[in-house]
């Protein structure tokens, strides 16, 4: 059985290699994946199937997929926090995320929990065609 750091590094390798489906496939069938905020993509996806059915299609519209580069993960017991930066081009604008964080919990060779932190305003403008205006 892989340890927490090995699982984290496998996820990193897959994301850096643009193998997003294999990376997200590391979420356990009964795992939970949360995108922070209140965007169209923001909620907790319950189970791998929910993630594949509902989040992946939202993210499959990138004109240029985001290329992420990770730091060494912060690992503590079954917890691993993966810090990254990356950029790409979404369907409605440039997608620049200098600060990404995936807060995870590992069980065996899989993740039972992933919480994805990023600039949610960038999600709105680059992927969902929104803009920021004075209230």
């Amino acid at each position, binding site marked *: 059985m892989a340890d927490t750091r090995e699982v984290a590094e496998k996820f990193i390798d897959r994301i850096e290699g643009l193998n997003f489906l294999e990376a997200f496939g590391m979420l356990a069938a009964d795992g939970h994946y949360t995108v922070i*905020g209140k965007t169209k993509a923001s909620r907790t996806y319950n189970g791998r199937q929910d993630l594949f059915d509902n989040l992946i299609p939202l993210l499959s519209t990138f004109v240029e997929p985001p290329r992420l580069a990770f730091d060494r993960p*912060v690992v*503590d017991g079954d917890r691993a926090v993966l810090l990254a930066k990356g950029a790409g081009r979404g369907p409605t604008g440039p997608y620049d995320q200098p600060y990404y964080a995936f*807060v995870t919990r590992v069980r065996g060779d899989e993740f039972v929990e992933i919480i994805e932190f*990023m600039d*949610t*305003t960038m999600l709105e403008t680059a992927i969902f065609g*929104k803009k920021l205006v*004075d*209230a």
Partner: protein
Amino acid sequence: MSETKTIVRRFFDTLCSGDFAAAFAGMTDDATWSVIGTTAVSGTLDKAGMLSKQVPMLASFKEPPVVGVDEIIADGNRAVVLAHCSGVGPTGPYEQKRYAFVLRIRDGLVAEVVEYLDTVAVETAICGNKVVAA
């Protein structure tokens, strides 16, 4: 508990109590605090900037933001604090169900903080902006 966790726990206890002077004393002289995103409060501040910009921004809240620490994850000299927060900002309700603060410790002091949060909530509650269809 690891030394890093102890330092970070103490730092956040002090910060959450509102004793910013004591919290700053727990930071290195060259410490930085970064807020992700492109909001008016995003960017990296040194200690002088924290005092001249961050503290007044927090003081502008109609109801001060109350931060609760949920968990501290630590590895060597780095730690991640998971937290939540709510209050009422100058331009609207402010709620962050999930916060992540990533810290780096040096010589027993906090040398770096990066604050990961929902930037849309910052725009609406603090900066007076809103997100609309383009």
